[in-house]
């Protein structure tokens, strides 16, 4: 299955991309957290998983949210608006 990942701020700098599509085996039933940890290992993100919030298809989702084919997953590093 294909998952759309979007990156912002320091994570975009670390990954070097605003977005990408990744392939996952649907039978692995990946959670948002599991996908982040995989990408963190692969690309060396400095953030721990507990510093990241997740958004699926445009709204906040728990780290345990199961990601399906075609979903858009966004990792939200610590914010600093205002």
């Amino acid at each position, binding site marked *: 299955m294909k998952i759309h990942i979007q990156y912002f701020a320091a994570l975009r700098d670390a990954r070097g991309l605003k977005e990408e599509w990744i392939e996952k085996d649907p039978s692995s039933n990946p959670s948002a957290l599991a996908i982040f940890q995989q990408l963190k290992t692969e690309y060396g993100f400095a953030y721990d998983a507990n510093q990241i919030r997740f958004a699926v298809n445009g709204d*906040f989702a728990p780290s345990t949210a199961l990601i399906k084919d075609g979903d858009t997953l966004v990792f939200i590093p610590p*914010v600093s608006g*205002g």
Partner: protein
Amino acid sequence: MDTMIPYIQIQAEPIDSSDKVKQADEFQPPPDCGGVCYFEGVIRNHNHGKKVHYLEYEAYEDLAYKELKRIAHEAAEKFDVKKISIIHRVGRLEIGDTAVSIRVATHHRREAFESCQYIIDSLKVRVPIWKKEVYLDGCHEWTQCTHS
């Protein structure tokens, strides 16, 4: 019933480049409101002992709009706010620029102060907007909200 519709805007255009009096006039408090509170978050020239050259703000806009609306409705319910306007800039901002403008109108002044504070405090920890500080020494850093 909550019939208050907050005005929420995320924009690259300066908030305060045009006539400030006109902007104040446009936020007309309803006739039953006696308290109007304005907060502006302004870019300052220092942070954590470093001299700031300029800032860049970035937003995950779809979700930022959603979360700002949720915060506005929470404030309206907690503090009986009758009118709310929240404007946040994105892009490059210089020292002295206004990054965020919050305006509330309530019946009485205590709720105006408290709701305005609630909105900015909530925005700073919840809304997916990030700021990168670029320092005079050329270094830059994506900051985290650590203080009030």
